């Protein structure tokens, strides 16, 4: 009996001790490495050295985004906020910088001050260099105040290029999750170049690894890793051109893209704009509300995200697409009586010129922007053959520009309509589409790229950046095969638009600009034009927000394209009257600023072959009256 009891007790002891030894063995021998790492992690604390963000520079070396040097002010930790010491510090700060908010300092201090924090607490984020210089000697005497240098992003050209450069702001939770470095820095590019090239611009933080105790007291510095910083970006942009265009717009809303045929963007303007400096340290509610409620949408990047019906500017691409849909169709001239009827219902489609253009060939169709020419041909080819061919011009797809948030626009066809509205396609819609109205939508940047294709046969990838640090970015283009005969006729038609009598923009260009410009005007309807009206209403008579948008897209010099200029004026009425003069001013400015390699040659117009028109057969199509 006794023996058994003693045995039971001894067995109990043994079991408990065996488990104990097994656990100790597991902890200190099997898991030694794991716990060693944990012990090390306990004692090491890394402080990051924030990298200086790269600057953004325009093609002539002007700073578009820079780091302003100033100072931050920190207060020693573990001070009693009710005590004399702390009150003296705040008193001295307020006396030196009367604009500081006493409550704010107290609030920040209380929030950051804790038993575990042994660092000075930053209570003022930024004070201008010149303001601090005179105050520094006195402040530095107070051992509870720490003044450190601080960077602040500054955009010297404020409104002029805000849609291109973008701005930086405090990171939000989503950005912190996505980018660890941005989380460390606490600021990240929110839009434009600042956002697209954020990874490059922000660089990589360095760090100071130091040994600390359980209460975070620093004992010694173990190692120091310098940050990767000052990674500058040079843009193709000329900010003076940008500024000229922005100011030229005045109170009008719109967008401009000035681009080389290679894709290098010289200017990209979206008006109205905003001051990106407002966002750097958080925008005030008042400023936000003013910008947010503006009907002209200053936040919308109109050259990138704004989509508009291309109107008559589509006609060059439309002609090429029709030829691809039905080869040889461009050889047939059309008769324009001023209007046609379409479909069983006999819906009337009018030309912009009510008495018609007579017999129209391709060149004349571009020059005079003859709607009926395209109406008729589109009914022959049908929309479903046009759309894929038109997409080859870069419309309806991404431009792959180095900026986030571009719209792809819409090149409609029957399938698209089925998917979107679950409705069949009507022939009248084909007619509408043929002159760039209806469902078709493009962005100004897409249209500039498309114009470059017409001018050079190359479809460029628009690009803002020219150099990332020391690395030069080579622009990319894609050759697109078109029949040169039609291309040169179209180009000639575009030349006529700006130079020949009867061209839609001849009064603006012609002798008024020092170089030979070729282009095309366009009007994109905002409100559908009523069919019952015999004559289209004059744009000037419409309410402002019902007026059509005005387009002009051009290139120059005519013989050897060096620049593409695409202008959109929202609610600007006819393209020729409001967008044209802006484009003309841009060319004059470019000419004055020696943008054309051979200024003298630029004005000379090479002879235009007219061979394509000789054997043109005229096909008279009368109004179909049911």
């Amino acid at each position: 009996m006794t023996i058994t009891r003693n045995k039971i007790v001894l067995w109990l002891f043994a079991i408990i001790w065996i488990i104990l030894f097994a656990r100790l063995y597991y902890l200190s021998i099997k898991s030694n490495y794991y716990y060693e790492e944990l012990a090390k992690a306990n004692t090491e604390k890394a402080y990051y050295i924030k990298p200086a963000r790269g600057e953004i520079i325009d093609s002539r070396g002007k700073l578009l985004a820079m780091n302003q040097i100033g100072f931050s002010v920190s207060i020693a930790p573990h001070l009693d906020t009710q005590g004399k010491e702390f009150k003296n510090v705040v008193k001295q700060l307020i006396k030196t910088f009367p604009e500081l908010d006493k409550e704010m300092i107290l609030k920040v201090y209380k929030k950051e001050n804790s038993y575990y924090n042994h660092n000075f607490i930053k209570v003022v984020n930024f004070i201008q260099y010149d303001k601090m210089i005179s105050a520094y000697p006195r402040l530095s005497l107070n051992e509870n105040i720490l003044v450190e240098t601080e960077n602040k992003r500054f955009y010297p050209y404020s409104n002029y290029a805000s849609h291109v450069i973008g701005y930086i702001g405090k990171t939000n939770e989503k950005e912190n999750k996505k980018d660890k470095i941005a989380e460390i820095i606490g600021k990240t590019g929110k839009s434009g170049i600042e956002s697209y090239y954020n990874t490059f611009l922000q660089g990589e933080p360095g760090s100071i690894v130091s040994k600390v105790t359980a209460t975070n007291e620093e004992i010694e510095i173990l190692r120091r890793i310098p940050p990767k910083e000052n990674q500058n970006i040079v843009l193709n942009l000329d900010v003076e051109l940008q500024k000229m265009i922005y100011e030229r717009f005045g109170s009008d809303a719109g967008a401009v893209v000035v681009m080389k045929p290679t894709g290098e963007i010289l200017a990209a303007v979206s008006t109205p704009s905003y001051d990106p400096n407002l966002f750097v340290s958080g925008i005030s509610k008042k400023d936000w509300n003013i910008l947010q409620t503006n009907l002209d949408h200053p936040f919308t990047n109109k050259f990138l995200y704004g989509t508009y019906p291309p109107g008559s500017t589509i006609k060059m691409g439309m002609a090429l697409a029709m030829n691809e849909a039905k080869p040889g169709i461009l050889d047939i001239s059309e008769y324009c009586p001023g209007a046609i009827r379409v479909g069983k219902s006999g819906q009337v489609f009018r030309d912009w010129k009510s008495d018609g253009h007579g017999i129209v060939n391709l060149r004349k169709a571009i020059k005079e922007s003859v709607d009926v020419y395209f109406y008729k041909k589109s009914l022959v080819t049908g929309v479903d053959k046009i759309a894929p061919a038109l997409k080859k011009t870069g419309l309806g797809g991404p431009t792959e520009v180095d900026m986030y948030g571009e719209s792809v626009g819409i090149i409609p066809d029957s399938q698209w309509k089925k998917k979107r509205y679950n409705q069949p396609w009507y022939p009248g819609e084909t007619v509408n589409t043929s002159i760039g109205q209806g469902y078709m939508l493009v962005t100004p940047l897409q249209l500039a790229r498309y114009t470059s294709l017409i001018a050079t046969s190359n479809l460029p990838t628009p690009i803002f950046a020219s150099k990332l640090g020391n690395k030069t970015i080579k622009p990319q283009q894609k050759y697109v095969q078109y029949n040169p005969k039609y291309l040169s006729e179209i180009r000639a038609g575009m030349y006529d638009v700006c130079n020949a009598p009867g061209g839609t923009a001849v009064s603006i260009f012609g002798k008024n600009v020092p170089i030979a410009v070729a282009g095309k005007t366009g009007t994109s309807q905002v409100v559908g034009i009523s069919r019952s009206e015999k004559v289209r209403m004059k744009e000037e008579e419409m309410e402002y927000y019902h007026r059509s948008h005005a387009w002009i897209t051009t290139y120059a010099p005519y013989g050897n394209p060096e620049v593409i200029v695409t202008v959109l004026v929202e609610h600007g009425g006819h393209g020729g009257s409001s967008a044209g003069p802006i484009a003309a001013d841009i060319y004059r400015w470019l000419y004055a600023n020696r943008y054309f390699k051979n200024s003298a040659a630029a004005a000379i117009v090479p002879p235009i072959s007219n061979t394509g028109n000789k054997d043109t057969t005229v096909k008279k199509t009368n109004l179909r009256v049911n």
Partner: protein
Amino acid sequence: MLSWLNLNERVFKHFNYLLMIQLLPIFFLSSWLIYEINPELFKKQMIYYVVAFIAFLISVVTPWRLILWWLMPVIYGFNILLLIAVDLFGKTILGAQRWLEIPGIGMTIQPSEFTKVSIIMALAYMIRKNPPPRDGYGIKMFIVFTALILIPFVLIAKEPDLGTALVLLIVGFGILFVVGIKKQIWIWLSIFIVLSAPIIYTYGLKTYQKQRIHDAISHPSYHVKQALIAIGSGGIVGKSKEDSTQTQMKFLPISSSDFIFAYLGERLGFLGMATVIFLYILLILHLFYIGIQPFTDYLTKVFAIGLSWLFFVYMGVNVYMIIGLAPVVGIPLPMFSHGGTSFIIFAILFGILQNLIAFQSYLGYNSDAKISMVK
């Protein structure tokens, strides 16, 4: 001169020197580690050693066998009164009402610490007075013993100090088990505990106690995490004092008292920990061996077995909680952790045991000598 204390050669002859020698390496390691953690604490610890040594000597020469018949009820009763006083006017520290302030001198005492002595003493006296029958005690005596154990248990558990209360419960019933209770009683008791455990867990425990039990099983607390890191990073032979960052940089909380075993692990590694546990095992087995000797009288038996159980439970619970196998309760590593009260109490218990061993066969010394022939 000391003849009235009966300090003759017989005492020195029967004194268990081995038991005392076994404790020396434990003291040595303990004071060395405490010195490394904080020399100030080491100084204090040395004072405790001196006080404990004096208490030990007094216990050795106190004629326990002569005075137990009146001392036991006095000590036990006084202890119960103190525990009730704690309940009524106790000082609350960190949410637990465990301390009594002695008026005037600003010293606090923790009466639950003395309960170790009172319970063992009470059981020893009662068992000696009523030796167990051959097949163990019956239900009547069992109820008496249980009452002796449960009264202080309930008072201490109420403080709340469930850790100490449970230790006393285990030690008390552990002694009874070795001394002998009828088998049927244990069986019925087991069934009762198994059935009532869920009910006690649901209604008897406070939320923080459940949380501790829960944490011990799933995710360890900050204390335990740091202790695991300390033990785990020690490896086989441990790290130098400077490299023992867990302790030196104060990541390990209360490293000198309840969590000293973790510093031992960090500083001396697996071998150091194994050595210390081995020393405890030897001590526990030695005490147990003394307790189960045939012809040992019941006083010696109960004190030896009681001390054996005390060391077993204290060491087991302390190390288990540090290695994350038991909830964190305020149980020190016996005679190793920095601290005065617990150390002195153990010294007194050893003193009593040595006294009992030395005078075991000294018939004249035993006032109501009744040599038990029960094996």
